[in-house]
């Protein structure tokens, strides 16, 4: 079974600074996808960024980028120029890619990191 570990329950960052959230995962599969979701107090889970395991290039989305280390099974999220609106719970998630009989496509989530942005 796949597992996702986020070792930082809470993080804080000064507005306009950079912060990195850590995530490690365990899998024996070769085809998979990794995601970072953001959940503000409204409860709405919002996709921040996605990484395909077969791609060596790290994904970037504006101020958000990842450091994907496949051999180390590490998938960290870097937020640059942090804004007050970035404050939320961040979840790292794993999803298998290969179709096989009986397999589902559900996301496996880490326990989350609560990010506080200080003005």
């Amino acid at each position, binding site marked *: 079974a796949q597992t996702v570990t986020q070792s930082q329950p809470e993080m804080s960052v000064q507005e306009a600074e950079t912060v990195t959230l850590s995530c490690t995962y365990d899998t024996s599969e070769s*085809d*998979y*996808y990794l*995601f970072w*979701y953001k959940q503000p107090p*409204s*409860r*709405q*889970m*919002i*996709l921040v960024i*996605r990484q*395909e395991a077969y791609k060596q290039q790290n994904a970037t989305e504006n101020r958000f980028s990842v450091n994907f280390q496949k051999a180390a099974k590490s998938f960290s999220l870097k937020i640059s120029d942090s804004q007050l609106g970035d404050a939320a719970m961040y*979840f790292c998630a794993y*999803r*298998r*890619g*290969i*179709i096989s009989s*009986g397999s*589902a*496509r*559900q*996301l*496996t*989530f*880490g*326990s*989350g990191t609560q990010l506080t942005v200080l003005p």
Partner: protein
Amino acid sequence: GAGVSQSPSNKVTEKGKDVELRCDPISGHTALYWYRQSLGQGLEFLIYFQGNSAPDKSGLPSDRFSAERTGGSVSTLTIQRTQQEDSAVYLCASDLRGRGRDTQYFGPGTRLTVL
């Protein structure tokens, strides 16, 4: 262009009562998922529907939980004889075809409180 919607937003019930939670996925999405988010267990997968295939119920915690999806669209999650440990936020998500590369879009969730 509407997103995933869920109702009710909040539900308070008494122990032993049955509850129904509703999810309306994004139009055209064939895959639908239910997750449960609780303080002690984090985010857990419950059940998955893909098109006309038999649902994957491997995440349902007990036989008090069931779900159906009518006409390949709206889904209802039913919890019978609710217990206090069922208190949680129930999240629904949908995606285009249930493939690994597809992005799952989440609804705002239903917060269930069992007294």
